[in-house]
């Protein structure tokens, strides 16, 4: 076990996986010489050479499009998008090619690429360094989506993504890159995609969260001690969703609050609520409450805390649910 920050765990995963499999390469803006603007790829170019950790031109569609071709040539490219909102130029490649190419070859060719990026708000940054774009990724057929909330999962989910035969988007909560710290298994460590984690056991309400919202949910659960016993479910993988874990917790508590930073409408919380409305309706003792970002452009950073789901908002939602 090593005691690592979340971003260090990402870096560790890349080292271990590149060591393990010579077909893994890292490409992106400033990932090489600089080691990434968050240092997530630091040391890789020195260790594995400039052919396996490549500084690309400033062109996100080019990065992801080239990655498709790299897969066809036998590589397993891990693409870094420098920030959430700068991944949008690559959505076209993602939707029209990355998610469809295996299908197009009738399953004969694999596209084992990974797109990873720091995402999310709360970091006091200029505009467009704060987005939570998971909906765009989750809605797209043919790609999987994972979001870690702990250093161990950041390593394990990224390793799983790299080993997966299909394209996986890994969103890394930049807000806790350097505040989430914890034990991380050394060497190879894989957290299978599609398995949620019960971060805290409880009986009165389930708080469903992922990424940087997991610590918020946990702190809300703390704040509610004495009032309500909250289960915190860290989804870890948004697609495929661990439906049985979700349904089991909902069946147990009968009350669900979903927390998401992204704008509300058609956010991932809607999918969670829809699954519950479809498959757990008779278990629910009250509404499924969404605590989310709002349907507005991510705000000026001096007031960003009012936009982000807070411990208070989550706790308030639980209290409302309990008193219905």
């Amino acid at each position, binding site marked *: 076990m090593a005691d690592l920050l979340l971003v260090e765990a990402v870096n560790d995963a890349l080292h271990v996986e590149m060591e393990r499999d010579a077909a893994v390469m890292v490409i992106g803006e400033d990932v090489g010489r600089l080691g990434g603007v968050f240092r997530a790829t630091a040391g890789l170019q020195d260790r594995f050479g400039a052919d396996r950790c490549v500084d690309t031109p400033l062109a996100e569609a080019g990065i992801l499009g080239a990655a498709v071709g790299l897969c066809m040539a036998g590589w397993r490219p891990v693409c870094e998008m420098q920030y959430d909102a700068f991944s949008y130029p690559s959505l*076209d490649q993602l939707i029209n090619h990355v998610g469809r190419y295996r299908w197009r070859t009738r399953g004969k060719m694999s596209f084992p690429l990974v797109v990873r990026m720091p995402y999310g708000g709360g970091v006091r940054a200029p505009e467009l360094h704060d987005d939570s774009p998971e909906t765009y990724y989750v809605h797209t057929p043919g790609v999987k989506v994972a979001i870690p909330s702990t250093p161990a999962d950041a390593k394990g989910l990224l390793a799983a993504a790299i080993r997966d*035969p299909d394209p996986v988007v890994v969103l890394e909560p930049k807000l806790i890159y350097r505040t989430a710290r914890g034990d991380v298994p050394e060497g190879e460590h894989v957290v299978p995609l599609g398995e949620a984690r019960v971060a805290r056991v409880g009986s009165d309400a389930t708080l469903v969260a992922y990424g940087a919202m997991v610590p918020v949910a946990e702190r809300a659960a703390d704040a509610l001690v004495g009032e309500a016993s909250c289960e915190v479910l860290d989804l870890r993988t948004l697609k495929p969703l661990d439906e049985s874990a979700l349904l089991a917790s909902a069946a147990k508590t009968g009350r669900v609050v979903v927390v998401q930073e992204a704008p509300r409408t058609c956010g991932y919380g809607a999918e969670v609520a829809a699954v519950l409305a479809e498959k757990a309706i008779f278990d629910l003792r009250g509404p499924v409450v969404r605590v989310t970002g709002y349907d507005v452009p991510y705000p000026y950073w001096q007031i960003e805390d009012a936009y982000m789901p807070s411990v208070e908002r989550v706790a308030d939602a639980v209290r409302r649910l309990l008193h219905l």
Partner: protein
Amino acid sequence: MSQVLPAEGGLRRVIGDGQALLDGEVDLTPEQHLDLYRGLVLLRTYDERSLVYHRQGRVGTYAIFWNHEAMQAGSAFALESRDWIFPSYRESAIGLLRGMPASTVLSWWRGHPAGWWNPEDYNVASICVPIGTHVPHAVGFAWGSRLKREDRVAIAYFGDGATSEGSFHEGATFAGVLKAPVILFCNNNQWAISTPVAAQTAAPTLADKAIGYGMPGVRVDGADVLAVYEATREAVARARTGEGPTFVEAVTYRTAPHATADDPSIYIDEERVEEEKENECVGRYERYLLRMGVLTDLEAEEVKQEALELMRTAIAEAETEAPADVSLVFEHALADPPASFADDLLELRRILGG
């Protein structure tokens, strides 16, 4: 020894008109010429029959490539079979030159899963529908092959309109910087559906874009299969020796509708179309070969009959494909599909069955 001649507008040309315009030559044996001719005729026959099949309701919407055959066959002839081809919808049948059954391509246009192939079987990538988006694929493939020290060149085909897309630009930028062994082959048929190339870009020529990517740009008469071959051969040689990518602009004029659903009479210059038809690429090469004594009328007729026969068999094969099963809706999207797919299929079967 090859002899490539300058043509009108600075286009490279080899084939003359049998009169004032002198013939050049390229370094091909008579057998190679015949091979190339066979490819050309095969594509022409595929195209002409497809249009008929479409009218008969036997294939769906179809993107006609009549008079684009020289660009496709000429350039593909400069490749080795280990080199990869990244076609657009306009080159849908280019796999035929690699031994792909015509029934496969017909099935693609018939919307039947049998039309989707394994690119590794022919070193031909899937047909790319969204304009220009396969350019970075070809570049990534070429780059990746070079990194693996594999001697494989890639060629991406796209149209004049495609050069306006960001994905073309980003792919070309990557190609230049990475010195990827790739040929960016632009079929400049001077139209993007109804949009003439003059409304597409203010660049003097499309080949002028090449310098912005740090690669050479060459212009060639797209209806001259030998000029196309020769220009591509040079580009392939550069790619193989590590000199990087080349942009080839092959100029022709679209003489057919954009696709079966299109009515170009609203926008096209019909006179120009007629002129171009006169000078279409298959006849031009055929007359060249006849002049050179490499081909006889009888042989030409045989080649055409063979191609027709192949198409007759192909459409029959395509039409006798078993109907696709609905289970295919859920297959191949993921290596390891979620359990929900099986549930969805079960439900669907129940409902369809009932």
